[in-house]
């Protein structure tokens, strides 16, 4: 089939006498859905679709990753930047199982991805055929929806449904498995694609109920010590401006969750930092002093609440959340508002009274000052020779004016980055929060850069996590995209070491790494880089990284046994903050 026959950008098309194969139908569905980029890796059971892709090269940019996990995380990074589904294309069996980790990660962090995976021919299903694996069964608990296609005619409708489910309501991963036979067979009906707009069994509530909004407004208006926790839902709904308007009118202090970072300008006078295990002192402690707790697009993860039985018991809780199953799941809501963060804030805004709450806000300041004296000052302005992670991030934050997209891996560097990067621009954090997936950052940063090539995208990774997916340096090199990579190297699995030091009597059980020469590795992939270990060279080194118009790797040798504070030990009350 020639390219001219299939080249159409019409949202809906019916082309009589144009009977496509299943594989062509997949490609045409992607084009008509508005997909421009696919992250993938070919293999046996998906080869017919890759063959069809060859004819769609001018409409669909395919990026060949080095491992399917990389495709998944790249699709996540891409999705998080653009607020639309990232697409992965992989083969059956191990190709699909390698996607399991990104799918689980996307489920926990509400990231829309559509994973198209191959499967053996329909007549071989259930026979333990070569590269057959029950991926539908495996992915069931970690997908928002999954579906196995055995009939090519189903493809357009199922693809449309996949994107609708992945992107709408609380976003999440969708997996579509297509048997090789369904890819090869010719549809018996003309191809016709219509974007899905509703599903009878799935109706996410966007606009909140009026009475719920009124009840919430009443609580807010009577509050003396109100406190907002803004989560990922604010970024997903693109409600940052509404949030700003809302807090400026009501004078309510705001903390953002790890995934909600960058929802507020870090230097905004009403911004009080972040709550959680390594969050800010005041942001944690004052959770148990507020009288009305307003949670917006967040799910009261245990890393935020600590001990639930002592969490915000004094407060009336308003829970604004698009996913009704989150209401009352961990924290009982006195005023639940089911709906999208943007719609809810818009509805609330005219009902809330202007207020200031300056005395209450001043309480956060007291804790901030103590935190600054006991922690921040030591991290940023110490006398030692060795580089501390915090100062590296703080310099980076200054030099990028807080406007870069920051992608982190998981561990100490992740906490430190969120502590010291002063986000000034919305939607600028990509991190693995719920799943805590080491190896996430490198491919996710690449995906983010593909999504927003005009923004500076910087991956900050520990030496442990980097080695989990470092093969994606190859993908980055091949693309030529100037992804900037910082390894904060302390030669340890730092967070685990910190726990072993604090809670396991200093018994360092398998946390020290013999690391490779990261710069030689980068150079082997064709990526420039250098190592800095001297504090006096740190600033210049970060300049070199930022000034490069190519991908660049900066390895920063950090103090080996630095611990991250503040810390609320797992399962402890949020007022039990350790400062050292």
């Amino acid at each position, binding site marked *: 089939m020639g390219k001219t026959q299939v080249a159409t950008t019409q949202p809906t098309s019916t082309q009589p006498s144009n009977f496509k194969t299943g594989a062509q139908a997949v490609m045409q569905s992607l084009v008509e859905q508005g997909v421009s980029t696919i992250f993938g890796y070919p293999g046996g059971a998906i080869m017919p679709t890759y063959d069809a892709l060859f004819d769609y090269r001018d409409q669909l940019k395919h990026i060949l990753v080095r491992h399917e996990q990389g495709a998944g995380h790249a699709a996540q990074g891409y999705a998080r930047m653009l607020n639309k589904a990232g697409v992965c294309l992989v083969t059956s069996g191990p190709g699909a199982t390698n996607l399991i980790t990104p799918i689980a990660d996307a489920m926990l962090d509400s990231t829309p991805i559509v994973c198209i995976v191959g499967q053996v021919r329909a007549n071989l299903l259930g026979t333990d055929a070569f590269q057959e694996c029950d991926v539908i069964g495996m992915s069931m608990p970690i997908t928002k*929806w999954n579906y196995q296609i055995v009939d090519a005619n189903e493809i357009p409708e199922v693809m449309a449904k996949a994107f609708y489910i992945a992107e709408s309501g609380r976003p999440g991963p969708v997996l579509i498995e297509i048997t090789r036979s369904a890819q090869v067979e010719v549809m018996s009906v003309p191809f016709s694609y219509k974007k899905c707009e509703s599903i009878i069994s799935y109706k996410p509530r966007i606009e909140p109920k009026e009475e719920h909004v009124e009840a919430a407004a009443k609580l807010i208006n009577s509050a003396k010590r109100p406190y907002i926790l803004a989560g990922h839902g604010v970024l997903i709904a693109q409600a940052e401006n509404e949030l700003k308007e809302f807090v400026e009118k009501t004078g309510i202090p705001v903390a953002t969750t790890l995934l909600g970072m960058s929802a507020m300008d870090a230097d905004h006078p009403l911004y009080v930092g972040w709550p959680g295990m390594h969050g800010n002192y005041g942001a944690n402690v004052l959770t148990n002093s507020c009288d009305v707790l307003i949670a917006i697009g967040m799910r009261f993860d245990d890393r935020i609440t600590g001990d639930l039985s002592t969490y915000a018991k004094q407060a009336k809780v308003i829970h604004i959340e698009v996913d009704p199953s989150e209401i*009352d799941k961990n924290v009982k809501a006195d005023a639940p508002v089911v709906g999208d963060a943007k719609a809810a804030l818009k509805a609330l805004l005219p009902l809330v009274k202007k207020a200031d709450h300056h005395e209450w806000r001043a309480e956060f300041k007291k804790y901030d000052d103590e935190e600054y004296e006991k922690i921040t000052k030591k991290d940023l302005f110490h006398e030692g020779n060795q580089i501390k992670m915090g100062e590296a991030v703080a310099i980076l934050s200054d030099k990028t004016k807080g406007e870069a997209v920051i992608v982190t891996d998981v561990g100490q560097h992740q906490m430190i980055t969120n502590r010291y990067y002063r986000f000034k621009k919305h939607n600028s954090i990509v991190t693995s929060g719920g799943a805590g997936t080491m190896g996430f950052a490198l491919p996710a940063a690449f995906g983010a850069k593909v999504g927003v090539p005009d923004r500076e995208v910087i991956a900050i990774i520990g030496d442990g996590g980097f080695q989990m997916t470092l093969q994606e340096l190859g993908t980055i090199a091949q693309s030529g995209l100037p992804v900037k990579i910082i390894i904060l190297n302390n030669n340890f699995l730092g967070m685990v070491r910190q726990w072993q030091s604090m809670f396991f009597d200093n018994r360092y059980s398998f946390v020290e790494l013999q690391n490779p020469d990261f710069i030689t590795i980068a150079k082997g992939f064709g990526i420039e880089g250098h190592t800095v270990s001297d504090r006096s060279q740190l600033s210049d080194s970060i300049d070199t990284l930022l000034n490069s118009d190519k991908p660049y790797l900066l390895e920063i040798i950090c103090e080996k046994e630095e611990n991250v504070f503040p810390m609320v030990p797992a399962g402890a009350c949020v007022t039990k903050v350790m400062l050292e």
Partner: protein
Amino acid sequence: MLTTYTISVFTTNTIGLLNRITIIFTRRRLNIECLTVSETERKGVSRFTIVIRNDNRESVEKLVRQIRKITDVLAVFGYLDDEIVFNEIALFKIATPLGAEPLDVKTINLDWNAKVVHWGLDYVVVEKNGSEEEINEFYAYLKQWDILEYIKSGRVAVGKTEKGLVEYLPEGNWEIV
């Protein structure tokens, strides 16, 4: 104290949905007492009746919300026993060899409201409808004979509401079976 909850789940008829639903019970370590699936009076709509025993109403409510979240689930209702009319069916295969004590069919019919549904050469099959307790009592009575096989269905239940539950499903062009 353990309370019995009957959860009625209405779904589109999709392959693998049973798995998706049971995964939620597994994750929350909830044991399913019994489960029945059938098509409803609406074409393409299946109804799962799931019975669980639990001492915490809140965790059952959370379970219901998690089930509702499944994309192919149309509606979920959780009930206490006094809110529904429910029944189960049991079959007993009883040995009746020559010379054995004959089965008291009259008592079985009149006192136990059960009936013989199949006469084999040296066995009979007795069917009994009723609540789990009634069936258990009948089982105890039948023990004086040699019970070769006993099987009991899951619960079927309808709500004691004015309208049928399907009336609460999302609006659509439902075809009546």
